[in-house]
């Protein structure tokens, strides 16, 4: 085929406009979140003492951390979908949720506690945490990866891993409403492991799905 003719064909197709990737990703998340939420209500549901728990700042902190993870990962995902993007310029955003957990740990350490720190760290729900967060993240991860296929990431594994962080942030937000372990130490260990699992799955999927 002659290159000039290919150019003619491309020009003839100039009219069909794709929506911007941010729009596509927004729609994808709006469709996937209800699926995850229903899954959450069926499998676990909100913890029974949620009204009292809401007065515990460490319960609230869990949502701030997981939502901070989700939103910073959304921003980085949209950035990485561009072919000329460099990860380093925006990666600091992903440190925000980690810094929040760190501050939470310091704050909790300065308060008097009935239970020793190791007991709070180990908690009662470690296994459930590590299994539930990937489960509730799965619909969001699938939707996010499909949306990001519209993009042109220079590093598909990395883009997939960040999509995994995004999905895990939202999945963990749901799980946080169930889990009775509110200590930032618990969050720092078990949530992080669950998030890393989802990010790893995202990276593997990204290598296949996000190449362009």
């Amino acid at each position: 085929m002659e290159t000039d003719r290919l150019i003619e064909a491309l020009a003839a197709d100039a009219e069909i406009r794709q929506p911007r990737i941010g729009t596509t990703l927004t729609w994808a998340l709006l469709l996937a979140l209800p699926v995850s939420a229903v899954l959450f209500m069926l499998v676990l549901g909100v913890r029974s003492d949620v009204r009292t728990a809401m007065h515990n700042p460490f319960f609230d902190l869990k949502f701030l951390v997981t939502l901070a993870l989700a939103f910073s990962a959304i921003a980085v995902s949209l950035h990485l979908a561009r072919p000329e993007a460099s990860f380093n310029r925006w990666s600091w955003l992903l440190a925000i949720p980690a810094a929040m957990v760190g501050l939470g740990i310091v704050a909790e350490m300065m308060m008097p506690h009935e239970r020793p720190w190791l007991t709070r760290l180990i908690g009662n729900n470690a296994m459930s945490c590590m299994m539930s967060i990937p489960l509730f993240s799965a619909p969001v991860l699938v939707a996010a990866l499909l949306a990001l296929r519209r993009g042109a990431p220079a590093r598909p594994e990395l883009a997939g891993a960040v999509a995994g962080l995004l999905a895990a942030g939202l999945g963990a937000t749901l799980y946080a409403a169930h889990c009775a372990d509110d200590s930032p130490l618990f969050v720092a260990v078990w949530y992080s492991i669950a998030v890393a699992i989802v990010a790893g799955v995202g990276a593997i999927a990204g290598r296949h799905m996000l190449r362009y």
Partner: protein
Amino acid sequence: MRRRDDEWTVLMRSANAGDEAAYRRLLRSVAPVLRAAAYRGLARAGQPVDQAEDIVQEILLAVHLKRQTWDATAPFAPWLFAIARNKLIDALRRRGSRVFINIDDFSETMAAPAAAETLTSAEIASHLDGLPQRQRDVLRSIAVESASIKETAARLSMSEGAVRVALHRGLASLAGKLRES
């Protein structure tokens, strides 16, 4: 160089606003630059340079299908070269080369090696046969037989809208086939 880059940016903005003529001019203007870079990349990798046109066409296709990822407030050239670099590396890897590509391969490219004969590539054409029939007929008509959308619609007894959709899907499928090959 600055002027060329600025001109590309302006053309791409018009193209994204639906200006088909500006888009055609842009693609014609970038093709020689891509060609020069593809020649250089192939030569450096010790590959036959006669495959350069395959790579040029593959880059043009990717530019077309990913153009919504370009931010209209950013300059066009870095975006273009990022896509070109990605596709060139891919193409060389597929041909079994270990690849080291310098950013300067693109940014310092002046003009194309001017070739007198029409430049053709066999690779895309060879994938046409694998497409669904509608897409294949439409692409053949427009890209091989030089028919317009209108003529193609009349020839294949389709609506112009259906021709446009088949053309777009056909281009996307072609890119997919190239990626898998």
